[in-house]
């Protein structure tokens, strides 16, 4: 019963990933993009460990509200962060399209897996380093060090995130070496 449930999530994950992979456009480093409302965000695809449909998470009391809790990723405990709440955006009900993108976060000398809850997956783009433009110094509500750069893809602006500084800080506080 339990097994079949996880099988299902896995298959959802793979089909979505396949779909995203087939949509590859352009050269350069590959970025997986996803949407929050009308906005499109990207993360380095090499950092993506797994994509799964939203299922419940176990909340951890007394942690920031955007930390939605922890989930079971094949036997390890992984925290998930609601990216809308992290960026102070209006929150949405989670739907069948809501996905959790599990990414590898390197902070200090530690590697961690953390999940990002996003509205839906979008595309995989190849973006060259020179296509990345620096974010404006002000006028964004997202801290500029969370953003690696902005790129234009098919007339859309893709905000490429730096997951290490975005998530590393949350996990870094009070975390020690082991």
């Amino acid at each position: 019963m339990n097994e079949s449930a996880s099988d299902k999530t896995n298959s959802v994950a793979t089909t979505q990933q396949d779909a995203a992979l087939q949509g590859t456009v352009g050269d350069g480093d590959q970025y997986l993009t996803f949407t929050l409302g009308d906005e499109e965000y990207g993360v380095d695809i090499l950092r993506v460990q797994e994509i799964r449909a939203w299922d419940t998470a176990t909340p951890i009391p007394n942690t920031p509200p955007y930390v939605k809790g922890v989930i079971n990723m094949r036997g390890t405990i992984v925290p998930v962060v609601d990216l809308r709440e992290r960026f102070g955006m209006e929150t949405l009900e989670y739907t069948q399209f809501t996905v959790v993108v599990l990414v590898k976060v390197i902070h200090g000398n530690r590697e961690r897996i953390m999940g990002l809850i996003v509205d839906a997956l979008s595309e995989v783009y190849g973006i060259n380093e020179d296509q990345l433009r620096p974010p404006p110094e002000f006028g964004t509500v997202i801290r500029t060090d969370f953003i690696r750069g902005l790129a234009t893809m098919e007339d859309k602006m893709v905000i490429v995130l730096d997951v290490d500084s975005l998530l590393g800080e949350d996990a870094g506080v009070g975390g020690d070496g082991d």
Partner: protein
Amino acid sequence: MSIDMNQFLQTFFEESFEGLDDMENGLLNMTAGEPDVEQLNDIFRAAHSIKGGAGTFGLNSVTDLTHKLETLLDRLREGESEVTTDGINLLLASVDCLRSLLQAERDGTEADPQQAADITTRLAAMVDGDDDDGSSSDGNAGDDAGSSATADDGSGPGGGWRIGFTPEPHLFMTGNDPLRLLEELSELGEIQVSCDSSSLPALPDLDPEECVLSWTIDLYGDVERQAIEEVFEWVEDDCSLTIEPLEPAGGDTTTAAPETAPEPEAASAGEPAGDDTQQKPAQQSSGGNASTSSSIRVDTGKIDNLIDMVGELVITQSMLNELGENFTMDKLEKLQDGLAQLERNTRELQENVMRIRMVPISFAYSRLPRMVHDLMRQLGKKVDLQLNGEETELDKTVMEKIIDPLVHLVRNAMDHGIEPPEKRAELGKPETGTLEMNAYHKGGYIVIEINDDGGGISRDRLLNKAREAGLVENGSELSDEQVFDFIFHPGLSTHDEATDVSGRGVGMDVVKRNIKALGGNITVNSTPGKGTRFAIHLPLTLSILDGQLFRVGDQVYVVPLISIMESLQMQGGKIKRMAGTSELYEWRDDYIPIIRLRELFNEAGGGDLENELMVVVEEDDRYVGLHVDELLGQQQVVIKSLKSNYRPVTGFAGATILGNGTVALILDIAGLLELAQARDEVLTKGANN
């Protein structure tokens, strides 16, 4: 086809190190003058196995040394030689030397050839003439090392000796200093030194790490040849040494030989060299402790058990398989039986697999006798070390991590706890102090106790120190326990100066931190003048605990079963209030605080507590009632770390994955109390302002 010898080599090293440990233990149990043939046989056997193995693998240095060792052991065994304290110490030094040789072979590093040569020489000397120092038997003692042994062994001819000392260029590399040797010689009698600097190169060519000087030393006085040889004992192989009697006339080069014959200090001259031999083994053995083997030795019985259980599991599985293939509703009961059996098999298998990791605490104990033995000599104290509960098993990882704290505590007890024999006599205590270690299971914990009957810790002094450091508010009363707990505070020591033995390295705060990191706890109790008792509580394993599941709001949490004193339904009459807000419950003639977990976990709700469920938990002898919504089952849970992908969260020891795949958090009672206290402080501030 070549056989991969490496795998055997690994086994050989493991067995040899075990053999050396056995030898060491046997030697430490031996008393001078009372040879125990059985014990000698054991030591001999261990040495023999090492020799055999070393021969197979072509480790000649090891074979040679063990061969010499065997010769001496054989003589002792046959009763041809007497077991003396020196003999035991030499044998211990040989064990250390063997260990470092083997370690060097294992790690592919270079062993100090000097050490082995010295030991070989001393072993040969002991075999050749146990107690014939001063006798006229010919002194072949130094032959092995190639030192000159031409003159007879007796005392020098009143006039003294001329010593030609030409060290090899690499002398400094072996850690020897000619100056020290000359100083030692000067302790034997009056000396006149001339230095030959003829081979000194021009400054640009000079290698400062090479010794290019040689010396001629005239030693005046009635000194035994052996005493001089002892001075050069450590450098014999790294120099050419000549010792010739001085012409009574004063010799050909020396013009002003004083007639006075200074006091022969042969007795004291032996000491500096002797000290060296004592220091070296101590360092060696501590180096040896640092290595932790990555393999584990398992009782065959445990493995046979596992095989049986896996067999049963396979049978159950095939039965279920068959049942599943043509299942009809009337077989439901059979299915349930099968599943129950599967559950039992799995649980048993899990328990037994966990048991493989359990090793007896004697692994940790084994380091202690030697350390105590060495420290006794170093500190001039007499201590009787008693080890109890050696069979108590604990997790291998826990074991490895507990060794350092244990060593530290024993060192501390030896250094600061137990008084020197004179002082003990003055106090009317037996001169020999007692250091007792106990290990036993208690509940889900292993308890390790370290008791000494030394001076104890002065409560007042500690309290004053804590006050000075601003850790205690003036006027506040503290329990003994709270006061003694300050010794684990970093930077707080009642000893004003650090000694060689303790006061360096890890402090008590590190001891406590290490033990806490294992999920354990350490407490201390002390009576001034009577002694000190440390008690370490450690969990049996690190990864599994028996948990009680309960629900708060929509979430399931786990609390370790060992923390639970009682679960009960609250009676209205026993719920008391303080200042209108904080709630207490009357429990076993006591009032304990009630923590509403809903509130603490920021869940909605509240209301009347009457008839609600409460779990009474204990932490550090403090009791507290946790208000929960519903009690669920009890089960073993595998502890998963929260901080490996996130960070430590106060109040939670980790998380676990339940049968349905969801995650449940495991409560950490100590952290929970911290949370509750922090919340109370906020509340009181609000109320009192």
